[in-house]
């Protein structure tokens, strides 16, 4: 109930913020531009549309998750709005969770709007498009939730610019850990091997959520896999939120 109040307020803030609409506008524009690009390609037009659509949903989702996420807690502290909240009978972790869920709610709305536009476009080109793209969108959404939690973690102790840099790096690294591990396993040094292996399991593996290429080329992705990836996402988010809560619980609001 209290968490919901914070979440709804966070959602309301995002909705009344103009940045969101700007990003949404660009996202829709980008999906629409895939029509144009599709025309330039000989052969499989829907492939381009699918590629562009999924990429836009993912890219703009990440932008919103990072840009809104990094300011989520910091802005409350900087503008001292947090003072009145903490003085109310609410645990700090409830506040944090509320902020997180508020942004997730924002992302849900944003992803739903973009996906609707994207799928309508697909239906225009194909009478019965392969609905496996929904699986890809589902996993993109889980990736967005994970990135949001990382942004929130950094935002709970660092300035927005630093958080932005950190989160963006985590996003990039999160897509490269697989390569990191592979490079490490080629190394002759056992230490390097172990370190890269350790990093591989420690850092978030965002490639787990990337089934875009499979879906676009109609390579089957089992629900079992989706379930694994989603569980991975939820558990990782739980860890990140837990760490954020610990940091947030201990800090002074000067």
């Amino acid at each position: 109930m209290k968490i919901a109040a914070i979440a709804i307020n966070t959602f309301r803030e995002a909705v009344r913020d103009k940045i969101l609409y700007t990003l949404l506008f660009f996202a829709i524009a980008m999906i629409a531009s895939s029509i144009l690009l599709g025309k330039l390609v000989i052969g499989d037009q829907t492939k381009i549309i699918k590629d562009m659509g999924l990429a836009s949903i993912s890219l703009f989702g990440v932008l919103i998750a990072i840009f809104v996420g990094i300011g989520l807690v910091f802005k409350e502290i900087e503008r001292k709005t947090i003072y009145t909240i903490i003085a109310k009978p609410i645990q700090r972790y409830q506040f944090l969770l509320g902020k997180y869920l508020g942004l997730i709610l924002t992302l849900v709305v944003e992803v739903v709007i973009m996906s609707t536009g994207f799928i309508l476009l697909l239906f225009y080109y194909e009478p019965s498009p392969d609905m496996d793209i929904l699986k890809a969108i589902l996993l993109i959404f889980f990736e967005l939730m994970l990135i949001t939690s990382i942004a929130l973690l950094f935002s709970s102790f660092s300035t927005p610019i630093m958080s932005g840099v950190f989160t963006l790096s985590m996003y990039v690294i999160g897509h490269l850990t697989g390569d990191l591990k592979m490079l490490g396993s080629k190394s002759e040094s056992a230490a390097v091997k172990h370190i890269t292996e350790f990093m591989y399991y420690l850092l978030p593996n965002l490639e787990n959520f990337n089934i875009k290429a499979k879906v676009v080329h109609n390579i089957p992705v089992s629900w079992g896999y989706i379930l694994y990836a989603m569980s991975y996402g939820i558990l990782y988010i739980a860890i990140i939120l837990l760490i954020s809560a610990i940091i947030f619980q201990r800090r002074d609001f000067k």
Partner: protein
Amino acid sequence: MNIIEIKNLSKEFRVGFIMKKIAALTDLNLSVEEGEIFGFIGPNGAGKTTTVKILTGLIYPTSGKAWIFGRDIRDVNIKRDIGFLPENPYFYDYLTAREFLNFYARLFSINKREIIARIDTLLDMVDLLKYKNVQLRRFSKGMLQRIGIAQALINDPKLVILDEPMSGLDPIGRTMIRDIILRMKDQGKTVFFSSHILSDVEMICDRVGMLFNGRLKDIGKLDTLLSTRVKSIEISASLMDDIYMESIKRLAANCILMDEKLFVVVNNETQKDEVLKIIEKGNGQLISLIPRRETLEDLFLKEINYR
């Protein structure tokens, strides 16, 4: 049972790159009784806000303890009965006054029907009822301070903590806040407020605590706090023979001749009585006798000079 009980409370901040320790509050002992208006005064940077932040759970003390309603301040449940207005508050300016109060009400799990009624009552009390659907970004500083107070009262608290509620307001705004605080007292609430504007405190507080450089210098009822201090008395009289004038000069703390009149300042009642006797003997005429009550301002300045 005291509403607020503070024992040996200290807070150190670590600042800068080398994490140098700075004491913001040192060994504070304080209690606030039920139903009183307690004024917490001191110059800027004295540690008032630090104390308030510790009481509301925004920061943690380095050492010492504090209780509100007899329960440890770390217990979140005590906050059900606390209202808090921070210094220079900023609020979610994208919300309207009504949405704003509704949001805070929901943090207390107050039921919906009650919320609606209470919001209107509070908006009426702080004279903002006609702005209830206006976004806070259009509010003036005084209006924000008032909606802030309404926010602090949303849960009908037993204790209201206000940090510098009058700073930055015009005289009308300050009067309004003063009236609201007095009304809270009438409703049986305990009010703890900090200020560096002494006239406000003097007018409405039952008791005050004075803070300098993180240490409590004085605490007590305003009257006793002021009456224990030596008051001065200003006497003016007509001119007399030099013999009498000389003996008055010897007694007085200060004595000047001006406009064919004698102005004498004495420090206590006995001196006053003696001066009056001399005037009588010398057939002088007493023009006026003004006891100068020491103000908080004087106390303040004295403290500052003292250091």
